[in-house]
């Protein structure tokens, strides 16, 4: 009798799990860089599929991946590859993280529009962000102190920038740490001595984009990976994406979805 009861309870639970997996509600959270891509593509996807409801939150790549581990989202948006530690934590909990590249991006180095410096090497960027160079005159610019603006540590953009530009070095303690790409762009636009960085999709007329190692971040240089700060943007799911989640990601990777990616200022996969 007891065994039968246990089997009935387990069967009810399994049905519940299956029902959760097959729902037409798709929940995503994570990277603020991927956010505009997710929002714009979700709107277009829901227009074509009115029975699917996609809800999207930001928070940072780390937050999205933790939510995937906790089983509270279907998609974790990430502007960096998942770390080995995160992958272990997922797999130990029965989550099989599967990466889908949805766009390409270059982390653009931004300065104020009035700043005449038009190119920086990766070595110079590292020197600026670690405090070895503190004035634009040392870089051929005006006699103006450099105001260093960076992203908060939960940001995937920070982690990619930290790895590719700084080689893991410590950011100068006087740096201003901001929580979003938009906040960085706005602050750089308002501060004549500022330097910051943001995804290509966030650039506007208020800031100047400098080339890195004499390579301008563009569709061509990001796609051929010659721009030093180029990267892939990902959506992670638990196992192979199926149902509404699979259809949504397939839509983003389709020519129609990739056109939206480019409209948002990012670079298409091909």
């Amino acid at each position, binding site marked *: 009798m007891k065994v039968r009861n246990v089997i009935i309870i387990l069967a009810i639970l399994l049905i519940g799990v299956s029902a959760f997996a097959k729902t037409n509600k798709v929940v995503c959270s994570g990277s603020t860089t991927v956010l505009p891509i997710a929002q714009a593509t979700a709107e277009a996807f829901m227009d074509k599929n009115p029975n699917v409801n996609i809800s999207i939150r930001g928070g940072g790549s780390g937050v999205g991946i933790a939510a995937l581990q906790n*089983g509270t989202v279907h998609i974790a948006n990430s502007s960096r590859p998942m770390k080995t530690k995160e992958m272990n934590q997922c*797999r*130990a*909990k*029965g989550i099989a993280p599967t990466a889908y590249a949805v766009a390409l991006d270059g982390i653009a180095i931004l300065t104020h529009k009035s700043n005449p410096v038009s190119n920086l090497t990766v070595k110079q960027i590292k020197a600026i962000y670690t405090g070895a160079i503190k004035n634009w005159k040392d870089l051929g610019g005006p006699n103006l102190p450099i105001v260093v603006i960076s992203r908060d540590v939960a940001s995937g953009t920070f982690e990619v920038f930290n790895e590719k530009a700084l080689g893991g070095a*410590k950011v100068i303690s006087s740096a201003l*740490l901001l929580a979003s790409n938009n906040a960085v762009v706005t602050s750089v636009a308002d501060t004549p001595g500022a330097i910051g960085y943001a995804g290509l999709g966030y650039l506007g007329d208020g800031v100047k984009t400098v080339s890195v190692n004499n390579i301008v971040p563009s569709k061509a240089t990001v796609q051929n990976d010659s721009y030093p700060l180029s990267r892939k943007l990902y959506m992670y799911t638990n196992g192979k994406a199926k149902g509404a989640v699979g259809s949504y990601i397939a839509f983003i990777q389709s020519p129609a979805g990739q056109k939206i990616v480019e409209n948002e200022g990012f670079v298409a996969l091909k």
Partner: protein
Amino acid sequence: MKRLIVLLCLGVMILPMMAQEIKLTGEMWNRWTVERGKKNVAEEFSIIRNNLSLERGYLGLEPKFSDAVKGRFTVDIFSADLSDGAGLKIKYAYLDFNKLLPIPDMTTTIGLQKVYFGSIYDWDYTLIGKSPTDEYKFANSADYGLTVHGYIPKGWGEYALGLYNGEGYKKYGANLKDNIEPAFLANLRVIPVAGLTLGGSFMLNSSERSDLLDGPGDNPKYNKQTLMDAYLNAAYGPMSLTGEYMTKDVSYPNDSAKDMSANCASVNAVLKLKTLVEKDIDFVVRYDRSDPTDSDEDENIVTAVTGGVNYNFMHDDSSNPAMQLQLNFTNKSNSVKNDKNINSSALMLQLKWRFNNTLKV
């Protein structure tokens, strides 16, 4: 001793000033315990404990000096073990070096740190009780030492190799002078498929010293310990099942009559309702079978059965709860009943709350 404490306090104050950022952490366990038992086998059962306590009061600083170097300093302020006032233990005080060795995802840790044995190092207290390794005194949860540990690429598992004092974080000074042999540890966990974790730990330890410091002759208390642990965890959807079996063989080179061995098996199951009913509630059950002295003289087997429910609330953006209300009932019984082995049961209600905040220096 006072100088040591002053230096320690200065270090704690100065180190974070050099850091890129500091994470402040805290975790408090407020517990109400009602225990039913008796003082000796001849008495009737009665309530022998009914009190509120702060079982743990962890406060931590986690300075990040660079991407490659991080620290952790955690103290435990508690009221539970003392008749008067509050106690203070240093739980962790270590530095992590991520790029000391040119192996990806490997960390070298130096200082008072976790002991990577069995389930003790990542026990998440889904149940109020300790991990079986800790509960049945097989290994300490923290110790002074040097470890290298890391992750196998692509999420295939993790490993650790360690050299410790072997006495645990609660012992220092005179306790350590009597032990001149370090403990060695090896731990491996593999995840062949998502949701299935297989692991094993091996530790060689000793306590006391062979020759007495304060006189001629051998020390009869000197002993060598071999500890082994097998670990299995299966997780599928909202359910997870964990099993652990451990053994401890202790030999006394100067008094072989005292040689002994112990073993313990523990199984626990968790059902998380969060993804099913959108209420963050867990149901937990656990069964332990422990033989603390596997010998003809003492054939007592201790069994403990625990059932419990957790209600998790105040979640952050990642759905991690800041607060947890836990209700557990444990029934402990002995196969041989005497004044040393008395059955008991306990009801515990615990409100656990935690916080963390990262400050930019």
